[in-house]
């Protein structure tokens, strides 16, 4: 009996000692990075690579000694693409987990649902979603890494102008991405003195867009066609476009800039152009391009770690995390106001998506040139300028 008790006491002592040692090792309190992403559900193609990227680089940074001598701790939740659960998880991150900064929000809907809460709670937030409304007008605590749809429209229309096009046929999806893109295209076209002569839409569940495209073809004066959409819609538009034998220059948006789009559209994608992240063509970037090294490293590291193809959406998370780390380092603490100010003043950070130059009036920090214009040639992406 006594022996057993002795043994127990010894065990307790060992456990207590181990506990004490652990505590001293962890004296540096971790920096908490919160994230709510659409890891499953309809937007999982965004959230999944984003989470993988965050996990991978948090691990890597910790192996290299952390930030400010403190390890990073990633706390993440899956909002399944649902805006109200995104808001709830943002609240949980702020109020229950008390994170120092949030990097997340895969979709514009999820981001915008969390924004009022984050603004009131005053926590720095780097969104990974696209629409221009996230940072225009500028919100004090909200930043974002992807280029906005407005920049995509500017990039496409500039390229059209260079080719001597001034009259556009526009076909867009009625979903959030497509309709926001349509609004931006109409505005940019007016600014640039171009004319949208045909303006048709399709809904996300349509399986044939021949009618809309015929409508564009029959409109007098159309010199180029632009499709703003997301998901499988643009692939169908591309196929129908080829089936109708339309020969006008054809543009897609950055929403379909992925290898899976090429697979879906097949040979009918030949010759179409779109603005995209340099991540799709890492090896054809010129050697003097400052992004080349970052892009190649990210692609190599991601593909080695996860054994799956890298995606531009994961790159948004990479830039988000790196901006956060840089801001915390610059601020020298995790004080929210100091981190926010540091974020706002980041200049010349070369990321995978582009070169970020933040300012109090620009919480995105990218310009339209960060998009590369690609053309599909022989079933592959090709950098054209």
């Amino acid at each position, binding site marked *: 009996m006594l022996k057993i008790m002795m043994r127990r006491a010894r065990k307790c002592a060992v456990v207590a000692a181990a506990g004490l040692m652990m505590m001293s090792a962890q004296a540096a309190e971790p920096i908490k990075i919160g994230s709510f992403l659409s890891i*499953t559900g309809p937007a999982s193609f965004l959230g999944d690579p984003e989470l993988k990227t965050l996990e991978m680089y948090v691990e890597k940074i910790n192996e290299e000694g952390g930030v400010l001598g403190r390890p990073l701790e990633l706390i993440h939740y899956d909002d399944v693409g*649902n805006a109200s659960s995104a808001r709830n998880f943002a609240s949980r991150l702020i109020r229950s987990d008390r994170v120092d900064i949030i990097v997340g929000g895969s979709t514009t809907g999820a981001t915008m649902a969390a924004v009022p809460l984050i603004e009131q709670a005053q926590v720095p937030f780097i969104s990974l979603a696209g629409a221009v409304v996230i940072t225009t007008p500028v919100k004090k605590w909200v930043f974002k890494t992807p280029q906005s749809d407005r920049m995509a429209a500017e990039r496409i229309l500039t390229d059209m102008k260079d080719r001597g096009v001034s009259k556009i046929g526009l076909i867009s999806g009625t979903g959030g991405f497509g309709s926001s893109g349509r609004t931006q295209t109409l505005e940019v076209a007016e600014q640039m003195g171009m004319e949208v002569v045909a303006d048709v839409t399709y809904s996300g569940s349509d399986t044939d867009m021949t009618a809309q495209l015929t409508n564009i073809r029959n409109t007098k004066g159309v010199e180029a066609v632009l499709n703003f959409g997301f998901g499988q819609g643009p692939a169908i538009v591309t196929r129908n476009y080829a089936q109708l034998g339309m020969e006008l220059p054809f543009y897609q948006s950055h929403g379909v800039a992925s290898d899976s789009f090429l697979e879906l559209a097949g040979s009918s994608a030949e010759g179409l152009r779109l603005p995209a992240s340099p991540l799709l063509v890492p090896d054809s970037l010129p050697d003097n391009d400052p992004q080349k090294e970052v892009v190649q490293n990210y692609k190599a590291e991601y593909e080695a770690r996860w054994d799956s193809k890298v995606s531009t959406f994961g790159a948004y998370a990479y830039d988000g995390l790196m901006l956060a780390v840089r801001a915390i380092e610059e601020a020298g603490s995790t004080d929210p106001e100091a981190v926010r100010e540091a974020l706002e003043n980041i200049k010349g950070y070369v990321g995978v998506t582009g070169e970020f130059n933040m300012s109090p009036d620009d919480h995105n920090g990218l310009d339209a040139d960060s998009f590369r214009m690609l053309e599909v040639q022989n079933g592959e992406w090709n950098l054209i300028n």
Partner: protein
Amino acid sequence: MLNRFMQSRLRGLMVLALILIIIPAFLSNPFHYELATQIAIIGATVVGLNLLVGFAGQISLGHAGFFGLGAYFTGIATGTYGWPSVPALLVGAIVVGIIAWVVGRPILRLKGHYLSMATLAVGFIIAIILNNERAITGGPDGMPVPAFEVFGWELSSFGTYSLFGLEISGVQAWYMFASGVLLLAVWFALNLIESPIGRALRSVHGSEVAASVVGVDTAKYKSLVFVISAIYASLMGGLYAHFQGFITPAVASFEFSILFITMVVLGGMGSTFGVILGAVVLKLLPQVLADFQELETVMFGLILMLTMIFMPKGLLPTLTAAVSKRLRKKTGGKA
């Protein structure tokens, strides 16, 4: 007889009030208060839905449509047009009530699956309108909603308030407010159930033919309770919008309608307190299961399946039956 009824009704309400008072002892941070507030608001919504489903025996698969309509009416009236909150909530409820009455009259003539399909369609139509009227509703990206305010006094989940000299946070104040609303909602539902209307409804549930034979105007009572439950949903949708501070068309979505119905069925159809328990379980599960990550959806489905297999009458009715059986056995053994 009437006295005893009154007592049993009040007893349930007292127990609920007591639970609502004790709960804050277990809430350790503002996020917990926020969840509790949401549960109270959603709970009150399903208490209203239960009147239709549990007592009148009519299935509505489009209730989130009314909830969303209430939420958006409040959001647009207070946000875009600067109305005060209370008139916005009330006018919203009246508008939703009228809509429910107009669509309810024809569709409540349908029975069984056809009725469910019709309510489903109504819910879908509302969701589509909210999604597409970008200029008014902000489209799929949603819209912000200002804080709840009465005569210039604001109830924001980020404010601080003093109550009898005690300083309380915004979420605590919201919790108290939502608890009060839930108690009111339950009190009204319990009274309605015990009124002649409630008796008529239960007779409709039992057998519509028999009910009409003994002179119950079944069409009238069915549309009445449809309107009442829609008004419940509209009012709670408005409060939910104020509390959340941001709404998207997801509040009117089919998934949300299904969630409401699942709360009713899981908690116990026809049991006013049971459906609140259903709301508690279904709102808490996703948060508890968030730690399981990939397995979350599987666990969620498994729990629902097991509950429905082993507790087909719903959580609360099965539990109370089990407890009273145990008690009876014990007292029986002693005697």
